[in-house]
């Protein structure tokens, strides 16, 4: 197992380096001096030249890449062109919001998804099963912006239950978290249902029942414990994609998070900010997947022994 994990770790480091290089190249293919583009036509040539030197953009690409990489390792992502503040500080501030949003979304998705999944599996082909599976299908096929705007319209605008947008206490995170978690809730419930149905047909479940255990006990102690294995892995992957995929939700609810920062960077053609947010989000996904892999091999004794 150890060897397997080390192999995965090396792979992740390689992918991270590749991603960093790709981001660097993509942001630099755009023709023209980014400083000049950002400052507009009427900027003073001397100022442009001074700022170009200040941001190190007059150096050869190799030097720039080395600087950016060594900075990123130390947590220094340069200074934002448009906001004039260190990118790392901006991201630290934004990450708090994204983290809160992602965890609430995950919580919503898992609680709803697992509950519906269990009920659907136990009442297989029943009315509740059909209802939940229909809903989960809606969950996985509704675009995020649609869910977000519907929630905003109904619960914030019409019913005035919750704030429409902005960050003002935990209350303002409820609607965004539901919007963001909606898709995941759908996929979690489908996965829980299908795994549980498969497991409920296993011999050891019959044995447990034959021994006279109560239904509920068999379900919780024997079936659910085993069904959780793929679900936990999916959750680990989901939390990283929730963290990095909140762009739309953050935009609609005006939450100052990493996603909104990235959109802001694109609109302002702010390369250091875009570079930082892109690298950061991707790193989260890669590390999340790595952890999911490790978690799986730790949790599943079959894989643990095999490797």
């Amino acid at each position, binding site marked *: 197992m150890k060897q397997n994990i080390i192999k995965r770790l090396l*792979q992740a480091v*390689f*992918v*991270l380096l*590749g*991603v960093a290089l*790709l*981001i660097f190249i*993509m*942001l630099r*293919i*755009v023709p023209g001096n980014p400083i000049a583009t950002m400052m507009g036509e009427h900027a003073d040539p001397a100022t442009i030249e001074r700022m170009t030197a200040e941001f190190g953009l007059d150096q050869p690409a190799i030097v720039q890449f080395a600087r950016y990489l060594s900075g990123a390792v130390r947590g220094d992502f340069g200074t934002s062109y448009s906001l004039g503040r260190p990118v790392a500080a901006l991201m630290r501030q934004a990450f708090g919001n994204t983290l809160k949003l992602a965890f609430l979304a995950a919580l919503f998705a898992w609680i709803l998804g697992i509950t519906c999944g269990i009920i659907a599996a136990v009442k297989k082909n029943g009315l509740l099963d059909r209802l939940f599976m229909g809903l989960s*299908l*809606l969950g*996985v*096929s*509704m*675009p*995020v*912006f*649609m869910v977000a*705007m*519907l929630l*905003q*319209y109904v619960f914030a*605008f019409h019913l005035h239950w919750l704030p429409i947008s902005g960050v003002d206490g935990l209350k303002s995170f409820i609607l965004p978290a539901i919007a963001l978690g909606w898709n995941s809730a759908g996929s979690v419930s489908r996965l829980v249902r299908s795994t549980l149905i498969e497991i409920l047909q296993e011999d050891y479940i019959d044995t447990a029942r034959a021994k006279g255990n109560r239904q509920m006990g068999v379900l919780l102690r024997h079936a659910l414990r085993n069904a959780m294995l793929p679900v936990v892995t999916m959750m680990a992957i989901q939390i990283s*994609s929730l963290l*990095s*995929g909140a*762009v*739309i939700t953050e*935009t*609609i609810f005006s939450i100052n998070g990493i996603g909104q920062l*990235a*959109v802001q960077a*694109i*609109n302002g053609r702010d390369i250091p900010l*875009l570079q930082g947010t*892109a690298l950061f*989000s*991707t790193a989260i*996904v*890669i590390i999340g997947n790595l952890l999911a892999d490790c978690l799986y091999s730790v949790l599943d004794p079959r894989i643990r022994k095999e490797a």
Partner: protein
Amino acid sequence: MFGKKKKLMAAGEDVRLKSQIGEAETFWDLMRRLAKENKLAVFSAVVILLFILAAIFAPFLTPYSYKDMDLLNRLSPPSGAHLLGTDEGGRDILTRMLYGSRVSLMIGVLPTLLGMILGAALGIIAGVIGGKTDAIIMRIADITLGFPSMLLAMLIMYTLGGGLMNVVLTLSLVNWASVSRIVRSEAIRLKQNEYVEAARAIGVKKRVILWRHILPNCLPTLIVLFTLNVPSSILTESSLSFLGLGIQVPDASWGLMVNMGRQFLYIAPWLSLVPSAAIMLVVLAFNFLGDGLRDVLDPHQKNQ
């Protein structure tokens, strides 16, 4: 040569292969079986077909223009004259939906197809040739898949700039990697089959084996992948356009319509919700059809 020497297949494998080939069903047999077994998939196919027809015959289906403004009729709710209401310029929403479906469907199909061709080509090459070529292609795929797909699309759009053709290019570049991974493993599985071994033994050229034996057998997988990738292309495009990074005015796509309507959400919610619902419907239809196709075309995936 195909890299390492293959061990002879066990006798049991032989039987399994034969039963797999069995009475060879033609494509149309399979489609007939799909129609019989999966009504939902058929219904989805009809829905998709209707959307395609609507996109083609848009000018004949509506008396209105999709770009001429009618300022006296701004933001009017759905009514007899305007079935889905009008937008901030007084334009009929149904008309704009019909014209928007041209872009949205094209964005669903074209980049998926391009990404598929690229991914399939690289995947087959990687799987059949193996060695260093395989390693290089797969490492590039790893890096591409390392990105959250929405972020990668945003980055490429930043580099290329907005517009229809750039969206197509971007989505193709986002799509290819996962396709190449799946096709590669399929190609590796196929090249271990006895008929490939036999073809190789009688001296058939590698290129011919690739075209005649490997590629046609990858087709079922590719068809299923295609149907299942179309909705994700549509969703990514609509998200990009929603953020203002995708399709640009005066082109119209459903995602852009959602974006434009967002500022009127509280006075005219139908502006955003109608195109959102259309996106959802098409995505659902493609997902159902893809699931149905997978069940008939690719039975060994069903059990996985």
